[in-house]
């Protein structure tokens, strides 16, 4: 009885994970559209974030949950483990990567245009920021 209920909960969670994966795929497509529509590197970074968090992190969690509950072990555990570890790494490394590339681009002379204000460029011209 209890195991039946647990199996049912697992099935429901797995299906929710699948739906999350589908939503993530749609997010990724929207991010790709954003890449096409935005004309500026710094704006595209926001589309990248949609693609990374909405389009990679959440689908990986969803697919991992699906694999955990709906695929027979040990293979299901294997896929779930790979998905979760990948999701963890994406969550901590992707923002650092975007930050690094944004900083490098700003230092290499790519300016956000149009922009209402660019305090970083101003501060670096004034010499307060190295």
């Amino acid at each position, binding site marked *: 009885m209890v195991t039946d209920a647990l199996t049912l909960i697992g099935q429901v969670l797995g299906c929710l994970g699948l739906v999350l994966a589908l939503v993530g795929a749609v997010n990724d497509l929207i991010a790709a*559209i954003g890449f096409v529509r935005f004309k500026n590197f710094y704006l595209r970074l*926001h589309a990248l974030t949609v693609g990374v968090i909405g389009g990679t992190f959440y689908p990986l969690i969803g697919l991992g949950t699906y694999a955990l509950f709906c695929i027979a072990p040990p293979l299901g555990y294997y896929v779930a483990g790979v998905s979760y570890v990948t999701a963890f790494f994406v969550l901590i490394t992707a923002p650092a990567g975007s*930050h690094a590339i*944004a900083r490098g681009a*700003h230092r290499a002379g790519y300016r956000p245009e149009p922009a209402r204000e660019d305090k970083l460029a101003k501060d670096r011209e004034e010499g307060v*920021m190295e």
Partner: protein
Amino acid sequence: MSKAGSAFVVFLLLLGIYLVYTGTTNPVDVIAGGVAAAVIAALSADLVVSKPSKVFDPRRWVAFVIYAVKYLTVIEARAHLDVIRRILSPSLPVDPAIVRIPYAVSDDYAITTIANSITNTPGTVVVDIDTERKYMYVHWIDAKTTEDEGARAHVSEEFENYAKLIFEG
């Protein structure tokens, strides 16, 4: 003592990652992963953790869990919907600016948590950071204000409060 403590913390982290990655919990894997994790932790734990006593404080973990759940559901969903609306609307309504946001934490992990939280919410990206004057330069897709404190209230105040609870003190 501190060194052994940090090695132990890193050992637990690495063992956890090893077991999750391999997807098994059988004794042989625990032993093999434990040996590998112990070697790596003994060689390079001082890079990662400097004050291991912080890790064993349950209040920090409670704050971390509350923050993680809130961040990964409410905040992310709101930011995603906002940016997706901007991408899909025909007029492409953006009003970008690089604003300067002060912060008041000093721990490396706290700074990284704030910066990664800002970058991971669509709509704001940390472009540069000045650790001496304690400013972050954030590219904001819809700059409601360019004042330092106003931007802080809009973008990073919540993250900062939680980061203080988790890592500082």
